């Protein structure tokens, strides 16, 4: 095996490896620069929160006001109230999403009990589909079904004489948080379950055999074997969604927002968009998104620390 020539090649490779340290780095450099440009360079934009910036002007033409806008979030009653509402919405919707995060797990556990392969596959494939549809299209579907004039649901209810005048589901502020949660549940349930189904596939079948021999019933096996095996995955995902508590995303709430439901649909991301791009208040929008980013990263590291402490694993 260890002929001299082989040994020489080994030494040569080792030497090359030492020399290649920077070669490998330079190969990655273009991508690192891209990452820097679009993820780190925007941090420079935080400076806009310290100026009375008005769009057509250049930054140096505007007054430096220090922390005025950042403190305005707390001291100015108008902003304080608005942001209070926005935070309430963010917490409500993120909280509801956290509560529903058990459903994909339940979905997978019960789908696993289905013994007919074709049925299982069809359910899995078709329930995953909405995840690949944009929020604009989800809104389009919502519109086709629930709008006042042409909406199918209203047409049907009217035809059956259950209601006499159309219900405006979309432009009403009743249950906005709930309907937002239901839409995102519709979109992501099947997809989130896939992760658990994959984890289930990895469970040692002998566990079930042994349990069967011991006389365990279906529910006992689900509760004592399947669920515990999925908990690690569940906790990782739960921690990630806690870390992302403030990041609801913009698309969903932007497309569903209207004059009627604005009070309950404005989450942080949408608020930043509305005051920044809508009302052109760049400094305030920057200040808010800056604080949001800082809180998010603090949340992430807290959750990461908790995860390290409780489970000996990190998520970052």
């Amino acid at each position, binding site marked *: 095996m260890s002929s001299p020539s082989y040994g020489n090649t080994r030494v040569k490779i080792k030497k090359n490896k030492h020399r290649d340290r920077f070669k490998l780095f330079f190969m990655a450099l273009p991508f690192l620069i891209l*990452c820097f440009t679009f993820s780190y360079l925007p941090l420079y934009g935080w400076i806009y929160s310290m100026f009375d910036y008005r769009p057509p002007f250049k930054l140096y033409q505007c007054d430096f006001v220090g922390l005025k806008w950042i403190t305005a979030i707390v001291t100015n009653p108008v902003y304080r109230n608005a942001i209070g509402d926005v935070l309430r919405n963010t917490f409500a919707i993120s909280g509801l999403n956290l509560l529903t995060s058990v459903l994909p797990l339940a979905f997978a556990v019960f789908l696993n009990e289905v013994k007919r392969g074709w049925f299982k596959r069809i*359910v899995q494939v078709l329930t995953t589909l909405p995840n690949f549809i944009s929020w604009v299209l989800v809104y389009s579907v919502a519109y086709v079904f629930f709008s006042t004039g042409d909406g199918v649901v209203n047409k049907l209810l009217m035809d059956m004489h259950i209601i006499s005048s159309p219900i405006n589901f979309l432009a009403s502020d009743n249950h906005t948080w709930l309907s937002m949660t239901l839409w995102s549940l519709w979109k992501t349930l099947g997809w989130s379950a896939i992760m658990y189904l994959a984890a289930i596939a990895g469970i040692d079948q002998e566990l079930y055999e042994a349990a069967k021999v011991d006389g365990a019933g279906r529910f006992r096996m689900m509760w004592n074997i399947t669920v515990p095996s999925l908990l690690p995955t569940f906790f990782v*995902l739960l921690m990630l969604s806690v*870390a992302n508590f403030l990041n609801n995303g913009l698309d969903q709430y932007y497309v569903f927002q209207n004059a009627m439901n604005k009070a309950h649909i404005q989450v942080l991301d949408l608020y930043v968009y509305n005051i920044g791009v809508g009302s052109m208040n760049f400094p305030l929008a920057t200040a808010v998104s*800056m604080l949001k980013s800082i809180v998010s*990263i603090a949340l992430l590291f807290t959750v990461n620390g908790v995860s390290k402490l409780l489970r000996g694993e990190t998520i970052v």
Partner: protein
Amino acid sequence: MLPIVKKKKQYSFGDIVFYTITYFVFTILTIACIYPFYFLIINTLTANEISSKTAVLLLPQKLHFDNYVKILKLNGLTDALFVSVARTVVGATLTVFASAFLGYLFTKKEMWGRKFWYRFIIITMYFNAGLIPWFITMLNLGLRNNFLAYILPAIVAPFNVILVKTYIENTPQALQEAAQIDGAGYFTIFLKVVWPLCVPILATVAIFSAVGQWNSFTDTLLLMTDSRLYTLQFILYRYLNQASSLASIMRNSGAGIGQSVSNLASSQTAQSVRMTVSVVVILPILFVYPFFQRYFVGGIIIGAVKG
């Protein structure tokens, strides 16, 4: 032993109840996920005078393709179709290459500052400066009304890098070592050895980024004022809000689009225009989806384990 096991296969009353409920619930859930799309399709194929009056629920009536013919004749729509396809193809190709190459480089322990640079990229998954600072940066880089704004920011996608890196770490390293002994450089090894091994995970990355590009909406909303760079999603959103009254369309959009939509007024209703554009946006996903969905399970599990 065997006969007893066989006897147990007889369904008890409890089993029957359990299975009935389970199958019923899953059937409902599945229909809830797929029926809306089916509904859109049959209603665009149904004569508009029928679909505007009653709810067509099961089969199209008075089949016709007029809606599609007329929709595809709208100028803005074909432009948007082109932009959407272009950003999907170009964007996904570059993302796949970048993810594969970066994932490969990050498996090389001898790389200078490997751990640091890996975290440098991964941390961006959780942390960003915020919408407005990002927007200002894009303006400063001259990416407003620039097709590159769709492509460049998406090239380095942290989650995809994790997926590929983990995948490569689970392939036999001996293959790469053998190639190295044969005198192959890093890039040759990447192309000749690593790439072919990674095809399944790269298919997953491809479909993730392609769907991401196809569905992306916010970047058009923020950065594009030139109607030639509008994407299908954006056009759809505008139709959703504006097609409700053709008058408002004629007021709000450019002469070209307004003109052709007003010609549709005789047969097409606002709702049929909306539904037809929706189907045009959905169809590519419906076509591609069945071929790629089998890669998801394998792909996602690796990412789920750890970053």
